């Protein structure tokens, strides 16, 4: 035991199961080109192209900004019906695409918050810090939906790290962008397994949560 330098590269990493895997011989077969029925041809080709684009994206130069295509359609006009998309996941709260936050029990059948309930609030930034990080996901989304946040979001998109290309390339409008932006991500953690800020960890802003001393 001469060398006592401890090297341990994978402190908390995950392990594949099952671990014993055999190496595969790849591309042993050539894939026959799929025969799409005529009426599906166009759609299928478009899909193929999309897949190819996606693959190309992976090897793209990192310095280029994300060619995002978010439509900041605000207001009701763009919605096809009186249905609302909403944030779905909350234990207690829900935010709808109009920026209203409400208690789960105040959610209407159409997916919108009941605006007649006094506790329902639009564009609520409760629990959000000036850094753009909030203690509740639903308030982060609601706050992010404020029309005035559009500039901030555009600036973020132009500078977003390469790790977020997949995500923000796929986002189509302001609501989806806020849903995606407020989630905890690689930016939210230190040492992989702890939050940088265990309280205000949902951020619509440009900077990651403030790193708190342990």
């Amino acid at each position, binding site marked *: 035991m001469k060398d006592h330098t401890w090297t*341990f590269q994978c402190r908390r990493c995950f392990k594949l199961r*099952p671990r014993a895997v055999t190496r*595969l011989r790849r591309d042993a077969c050539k894939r026959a080109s*799929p025969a799409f029925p005529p009426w599906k041809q166009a759609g299928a080709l478009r899909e193929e192209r999309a897949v190819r684009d996606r693959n190309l994206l992976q090897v793209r130069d990192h310095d280029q900004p994300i060619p995002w295509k978010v439509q900041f359609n605000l207001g009701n006009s763009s919605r096809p019906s009186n249905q609302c998309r909403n944030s779905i996941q909350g234990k207690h709260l829900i935010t709808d695409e109009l920026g209203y936050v409400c208690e789960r029990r105040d959610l209407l059948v159409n997916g919108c918050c009941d605006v007649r309930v006094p506790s329902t609030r639009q564009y609520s930034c409760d629990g959000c810090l000036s850094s753009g990080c909030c203690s509740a996901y639903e308030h982060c989304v609601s706050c992010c939906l404020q029309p005035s946040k559009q500039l901030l979001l555009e600036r973020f998109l132009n500078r977003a790290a390469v790790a977020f290309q997949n*995500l923000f390339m796929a986002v189509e409008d302001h609501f989806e962008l806020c849903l995606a932006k407020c*989630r905890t991500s690689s930016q939210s953690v230190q040492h992989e397994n702890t939050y940088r800020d265990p309280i205000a960890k949902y951020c619509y802003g440009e900077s990651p949560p403030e790193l708190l001393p342990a």
Partner: protein
Amino acid sequence: MTMKLVNIWLLLLVVLLCGKKHLGDRLEKKSFEKAPCPGCSHLTLKVEFSSTVVEYEYIVAFNGYFTAKARNSFISSALKSSEIDNWRIIPRNNPSSDYPSDFEVIQIKENQKAGLLTLEGHPNIKRVTPQRRVFRSLKYAESDPVVPCNETRWSQKWQSSRPLRRASLSLGSGFWHATGRHSSRRLLRAIPRQVAQTLQADVLWQMGYTGANVRVAVFDTGLSEKHPHFKNVKERTNWTNERTLDDGLGHGTFVAGVIASMRECQGFAPDAELHIFRVFTNNQVSYTSWFLDAFNYAILKKIDVLNLSIGGPDFMDHPFVDKVWELTANNVIMVSAIGNDGPLYGLSPSYIDLTECPYMWPYCSQPIYYGGMPTIVNVTILNGMGVTGRIVDKPDWQPYLPQNGDNIEVAFSYSSVLWPWSGYLAISISVTKKAASWEGIAQGHVMITVASPAEVESKNGAEQTSTVKLPIKVKIIPAPPRSKRVLWDQYHNLRYPPGYFPRDNLRMKNDPLDWNGDHIHTNFRDMYQHLRSMGYFVEVLGSPFTCFDANQYGTLLMVDSEEEYFPEEVAKLRRDVDNGLSLIVFSDWYNTSVMRKVKFYDENTRQWWMPDTGGANIPALNELLSVWNMGFSDGLYEGDFTLANHDMYYASGCSIAKFPEDGIVITQTFKDQGLEVLKQETAVVENVPILGLYQIPAEGGGRIVLYGDSNCLDDSHRQKDCFWLLDALLQYTSYGVTPPSLSHSGNRQRPPSGAGSLTPERMEGSHLHRYSKVLEARLGGPAPRALPACPHLSWAKPQPLNETAPSNLWKHQKLLSIDLDKVVLPNFRSNRPQVRPLSPGESGAWDIPGGIMPGRYNQEVGQTIPVFAFLGAMVVLAFFVVQINKAKSRPKRRKPRVKRPQLMQQVHPPKTPSV
């Protein structure tokens, strides 16, 4: 060192299969299946037979099934008539020997021809044929194991009160409820069968559930773009730092193949839309942060089923765990591996039978008794009614009076809100005082009602409810005598700290962290099993020393403790030992210079990690032991030795620095491992005191034993166990019998006075207080907190039932939502997809038969099945675990540990909660 464990056992697997049904969709896909795959090489299995006649041996076949006695009498009466004496029946010792049989193997050494003729003339004998010896050989011709098929193997290795009955995922015939439909014999080991066929996915395919329109994400090592086995790869994304989307390992390809392979070995859901997420590098490395970003993308893409065939030990990784909840709340069905080992679990029962091994290990390994630490079972409630739900009122405890249910008490704690789709129910079970000397089985059940917001709300506030009954069955024995009861101190073993707590054995450089929690059900399991086999009852103390009644226990066992001690604990333990409690301490090393040396650079977090204790917390232990004039040193020793004719290994242990003069102390000669670590020098030290035995001189006083190394009790990295030593020490502590092999050992030396050897000080700057239940940060350095209150359980008010418990707690678990017996499957046999094992000698040329596309059957079956959107996917999950920690406290422990299968009961409306 310690950490809390988590039994990351089990797994469970997965299937998915769901789909919205579109006839047109299926027609159009048919064209794929004809696509030839020229030039593919294939796995061919060749089975070759040869056989030879065995001399003198014959198989006598009867025209019916007869007992061994009857068979014997038939044969002997037949042979007697030909006057043949030199014959015998060749015994067949197998499990079927006890049952009637229709043949016998005999050996005839004389006059065989005549013998055979008379035998064949016997009215009960059908025929007689020579015994043959068969040789079978398997050969794989050209191995190209793309998407290898699973071989089905199953064997029962455990004792169980209910052997062989449970439907297992890999038990073909038990999978459906043994309808007999699939009861044909199969040569399981010889021919690899396809996993989808083994699990009878073809039945679902015929019903239209082929995965069409279901988005399945595979989080793995990626998939090559042109892999010929997949036709529906929608998207591939890479989340690693390697710039490729391809699978350089094979794991991701395999997993994707199990799900949706179209060729060779078919997957379960060949029509599923695959989304390949490459989150592992070719070196099998991944990080939480990669997962977080990939998971977010999966949510955005509205993935239906997400497969994660991975595992990791870090259940305290909150960002990861929170994200899993978030996925679930967003209607992503996450299917995760739970381990590669263990027997074939997968489905858990919907009852708590603490007598059933192995499913209820470790509960089943020790009956409960009055005065013991309560047994805690953690149950996960899966609520399919909605992402949120609640338990209405409280859970009810209903003991069956005829089954002595009133001999146990039950207490509950549970989630206030069931979210996402699930919650926990912790059930503490204890024996009532009136059953203190009773022995028998007690039964009852718990009733819970779960309410969730109605799915289609006509008005706000409408709820749907569902009620679940959870049977409970326990074995009770009279409380064992004090001397038989051992208390394992868990409270002072740090559970799973996020800090750096190095290994006890410093030679294990590749695995420097202590992960397992030092619990009798994890890495001290072998020791626990040994103590049980020696007749001891082992309980776990999960609270401070101030919270147990020392009169109940013979010995308190402290192994590898890293925690500090409250001043009240030190005082209480001293009184307890004066009053007859004995103490056994297995310590470990603590040397601040070595601790500084074993810091390491963590490339993951890009920082240096400095240990927060040594192998054990010797400064704290020394404070605890100081009243008896005992203490451990800061020495670090290693070496092989012999003690009482047993081979032993001392793996990075310390020595005893100080021991009372009238005690017994054993010494050994070791290498100074501290010197080796610090200066790479080798030195041998003689007379290192490693074991001390001491009797408290006061009337009725207990005994104390110290040993300097815990590695010989620890399952992880143990080289030689010292369970024999523990037996001898327990004889001493519990019964006062001093083992002569120790008291008269040639290695017995004068106890060290403490002069000349150093006892370690706590390391400057240690962050132990961050992970400690005892210390807190204060100005001027960490100091003990206020002593916490001892845990208190409030027992549920029983609602006794004067009825008899069902004789079978268990009902067959259905894996699928559909009762096959009720489903009409026209032309079942003829329509089976032609997924079949290759026959012996069959060449590898594989065309994709028309039948491989499940969709085509819908044309015929379609009429019988309602055509509507079926959204759910299914699967399974399951099970549990257990970890009993019979101590009441530990709020964290209430995390749900028991996952149970939640199966859709009907096609629609599908969701009810289950436990």
